[in-house]
């Protein structure tokens, strides 16, 4: 290697280093939120006595803090049902976020179903998909009882058999091979 060539390579290397010193922190700054998990948040939504087995009660609580009403979300809460052979003494909180593309679903009392206004997704009483384009059942929130109040915690998704998995975005399948094709994001909480 000639002296001239050595200096050329050294100068280019230094230039690349200087460029990387600017670009890498900036890019890292932009992608950091992917790897950041927020603080676990629990919010009381009403006394235990407010909730029954055979129908849902709609509650609104804050899922993302600091952005006002836009950070609130809706959940449908009931006691676990003996008829459906669910674990007794628990509370079930179903998210109103449609598993198709995230529109807000509504529980229709007369039909006993959740119905999405955007593209016609339909879910049964437990939140399992029974019609339309959604790819999995409705998400749920972790529940617990503190001082006689039902509290809602982090969101999680479920498979078609209602087994809890880490929260997925709408439109993403759960269970089986899909657990690898739609890998869990570091920003979500482990399922209960």
């Amino acid at each position, binding site marked *: 290697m000639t002296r001239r060539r050595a200096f050329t390579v050294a100068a280019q290397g230094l230039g690349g280093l200087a460029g990387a010193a600017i670009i890498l922190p900036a890019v890292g700054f*932009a*992608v950091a*939120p*992917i790897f*950041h998990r*927020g603080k676990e948040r629990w919010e009381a939504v009403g006394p235990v006595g407010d909730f029954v087995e055979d129908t849902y009660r709609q509650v609104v609580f804050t*899922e*993302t803090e*600091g*952005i*006002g009403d*836009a*950070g609130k979300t809706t959940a449908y809460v009931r006691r676990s049902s003996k008829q459906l052979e669910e674990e007794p003494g628990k509370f079930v909180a179903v998210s109103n976020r449609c598993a198709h*593309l*995230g*529109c807000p679903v509504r529980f229709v009392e007369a039909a006993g179903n959740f119905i999405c206004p*955007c593209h016609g997704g339909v879910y049964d009483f437990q939140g399992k998909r029974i019609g339309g384009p959604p790819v999995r059942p409705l998400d749920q929130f972790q529940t617990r009882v503190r001082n006689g109040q039902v509290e809602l915690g982090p969101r999680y998704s479920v498979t078609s058999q209602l087994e809890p998995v880490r*929260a*997925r*975005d*709408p*439109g*993403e399948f759960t269970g089986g091979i899909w657990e690898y*094709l*739609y*890998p*869990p*994001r570091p*920003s*979500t909480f482990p399922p209960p």
Partner: protein
Amino acid sequence: MPKIPDSIIPAPLRKPAKPGQGGTSKDQAPTDLKTSPPERPSHVERLGDQAKDAPADVLAWVDQRTGATGFLTGMLYRKVPKGTNWFYTLGSATLFAFIAQAVTGVFLAMFYTPSTTQAYGSIAHINNEVPLGALVHGMHKWGASVMVILIFLHMGRTFFFGAYKYPRELNWVIGVVLLILTMLMAFSGYLLPFDQRSFWASIVGININGTGPIVGPYLSDFLRAGPELGATTLARFYAIHMLLVPGAIIALIGAHMYLVVKLGTTAPPWTKIDKPKIAVPVAQLDAGANGNGAAPANGAPPSA
């Protein structure tokens, strides 16, 4: 050739005196054509003359230092093929739509607040209270749709006229990237008013992109800056919408237009090819069918 007397030739056309022969002889043109000594122009007259020359002087000063004339002449007076028609203006129309978006966008940014609690209020303020605010906002909003429509029409023209073929493939590729960036502008701008429609449209849009296997979920988190759409999502979309993508679009438009000027445009596919003017097949010459005056080199008439 007989010499024409100087007396009948107008003074400006006379032959000037030879160098070194000072003064004016009888047979030669005067070095100073004026009979009386010139009046010295007054100070005011001289100032006036200088003022008249000033614009040309400034342009000449810039031109000498930049060489702009050569570049602009080459670009603006370049040849275009026969058959060029109104469809060829769709690219310029798209560029104009982009410029309109850039100008109105800059002025909208003077009143807009990219905060989840104030964004909706600042748009309402622009529409209801700022003078001409509704007009500028409306131009930006409807102009966005116009730009998307024009860019597709331009793409269609390029496709159906076959203008993407050799040697213009790279310009097609750049154009496709510009199309993607334009769609990204349309998507990121949709969230900024932060009303119900923007909010839910952005959620649906982000979730659609999240359905891409393996990278989709991470891309969604990147766009939202977290697992839920929040305050940082709006700030992020704002930065993408007014800093990141416009810069890339401007750079790529520059490359796109450079290639247009360098490679020229194509003739419409229905244009007939001109008859060859230079190359005449030798066989034709031998047959004596040279109606174009192609005579043999020795000047003798062709002996058919």
